[in-house]
């Protein structure tokens, strides 16, 4: 077993372990932290696959953005230290069963599937390539989705402002 393999299994354990903890712990703050670890694990996996750019984006956006946002919102909505209310046991069991079955089913399909794939490896996930393609309009360019996403972000921004920043007169 090479070092890369060991790294892989560690990352896998980190992703799944902290993922499970994140959805089971009854402390909301801890849940956010476990989520953070899980996301970092995913970023590590990207690194492991040598997709450094995307790993960086993952770290920046998720770890630096979304998780922080979530933690802030926890502060805004939650009294600190309060334990999360527990879900009904039946529901928990059912959800676990359903999730496991779904997982088993999908894994079954995946394992039985022989992926074809291509042998050519022409595209290098380098920052230059990514940058060129991201704003390119020619073959392999992603200018249009880029614009669409920007509009979406604009809309989201406006929506957030309207919803979250509401007038004092309305809040009683």
């Amino acid at each position, binding site marked *: 077993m090479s070092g890369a393999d060991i790294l892989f299994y560690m990352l896998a354990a980190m992703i799944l372990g902290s993922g499970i903890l994140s959805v089971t712990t009854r402390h909301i703050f801890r849940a956010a932290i476990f989520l953070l670890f899980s996301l970092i694990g995913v970023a590590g996996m990207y690194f492991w696959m040598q997709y450094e750019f995307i790993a960086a984006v993952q770290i920046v956006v998720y770890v630096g953005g979304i998780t922080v946002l979530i933690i802030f919102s926890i502060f805004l909505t939650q009294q600190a230290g309060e334990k999360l209310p527990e879900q009904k046991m039946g*529901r928990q069991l*059912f*959800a676990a069963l*359903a999730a496991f*079955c*779904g997982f088993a*089913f999908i894994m079954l*399909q995946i394992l039985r599937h022989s992926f074809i794939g291509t042998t050519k490896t022409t595209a290098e996930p380098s920052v230059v390539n990514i940058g060129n393609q991201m704003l390119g309009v020619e073959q392999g360019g992603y200018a249009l989705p880029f614009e669409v996403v920007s509009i979406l972000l604009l809309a989201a921004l406006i929506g957030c402002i309207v919803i979250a920043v509401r007038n004092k007169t309305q809040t009683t």
Partner: protein
Amino acid sequence: MPNPTYIILILLLPLASFLLMGLFGRSYIKNASGLISTAMLFVATCLAFYVAYGYFFEYGNVNGVYQKLIPFKYTWLEFSKGVSIDMGILLDPITAMMLVVVTLISLMVHIYSLGYMKGEERFATYYSFLGLFTFSMLGLVIASNIFQIYIFWELVGVSSFLLIGYYFEKPSAVAACKKAFIVTRFADLGFLIGILILSFYAGTLDFNTLIQRLTSPESMEFKTAVASSFLGISALTWGMVLVFVGGAGKSAMFPLHIWLPDAMEGPTPVSALIHAATMVVAGVFLVARLFPVFALSTPDALHIVAYVGATSALIAAIIACTQTDIKRVLAFSTMSQIGFMMFALGVSKYGGEEGLGYTASMFHLFTHALFKALLFLGAGAVIHFVHSNDMNDMGGLRKHLPITHATFLIACLAISGVPPFAGFFSKEEILLAAFQHNPTIYWIALLTSGLTAFYMFRLYFSIFWNKEYHPHGEHHGEGGFAMMMPLVLLAVGAAAAGFIPFGKFVSSDGKALISEFHLQFSIAPVALGLVGILTALLLYKKQNSKPDTIASSLNALYKAAYHKFYIDELYLFITKKILFNLVGRPAAWFDKNVVDGMVNATGNSTQTISEKIKGFQSGKVQEYAIYFLAGATALAVCGIYLWK
């Protein structure tokens, strides 16, 4: 050939009278309505006599045979080629005779009603109904097409309904008119099906063609009609029997007679016209009309006619002996006399001497119309005077009502078959025909004619003799000229009509039939009649207790006869208990609960299901997601393993 315009005019005048009185009588010509109608009918009567005269003496007889002429025909409704309802005129001896009888009696009733119905609120309506009836009856007798006869048959029925229900505020009248209509309607059902059968096999509805096809043994129609059978009886016999059922209903033959006594709820002149002289003989007329088919092709059916007629004659006579309502006595007597006519036809054969019954029947129809109308009108005069129908309220009226008394007596003698009154001649011929062909019926007839004499004179004595009458309230008198004139005229007819050489004009095959007068044959019936009269004289001339004694000694029979042999009750049982409770009520229940219930249940169960599944939409977003994933997985599984 006769001029059809006249015949049509005979028809149209009463119709015009009906329309005129019906539409405007109530408001514009209220008081004059009677006179106008009567005048119109007078014209029609004259025309009828003219036509009859013309037919019998000028153009009807060709080479010694009276022809069946069709001076007019109009296709009213064509079903298919050859099968159509035609409105036409079939002129033959019985038509000519019936034209005269109907218009004459109707005219008498019109005149009589001028006095009798005077002051009625719905005077014009009454005359319009009379017009309608006369029109329908005339249409019936001239019909050249079996469906035409059915049409007017129904119209006659409805005018009878209207006239019986004339006093519509009296519940008994309402019940009576409904009963009359429904019972005859039931019989008409038979008639209708009979028509359907006949028309199917004959391929025509036209009388002449139909008779011709169904009587000639070589014709295809005849062969198929005889060949096809149902329940072992040939289709043709079925058809004729069913047609006769219609006739029996209208003619109040046993057991379809139950409507006739109740029909006396109508005004008395109406009873005279419809329920004595004209409409009730329609059945006889119908059988006579189809007589060749009966006689030549379906002798079995004719036997049924004979026995039904004889039974009715006897039963009606027995019942008549016990009734106390004078109109009901007359009603049963009518039924009995029609029974005579019926079995006379039933025992007859077609053609020549053998056809005596036919002639006799028609002759009796003719004379009976005269004396029975007279009896009813006389009874009307009595009722007018006494204000009651019950014999027990009467007695000793001969002093108060002399003319009525005299004419009534003549009529009684006529109906009892006392020579030389009209009834004697016709009845004698009937008995002779029965004697020649069917002894059983002859004996029944003989007994019945004795009973006839008895109950008629029971009636006569109870009204005019018996006890003394003490008029209370103001004295009406006999009702004036309008009422007396028809009585007298009819009395003359009843006395003299017997001398008409009827067989010369009316016979089964159109050839003249000279019936001989057998003196020795007449002895028995006349003697029996006299015995009947004498018995009545002894029992009812003076008020005494003998009738009651006899009645109580014959307890069961008397009671049964008094209750008309419980036939009404039987009918009531069938209709109320069986049809209403066992068919109608379940049908209504079934409709309300099962059929309707199913519809409602569909709606309700939808609602229920909708209520049951509401938990699906629990309002909890997590459950939504669970359903989502479940759906996705199910689709995936199905997609992969099932639908691929």
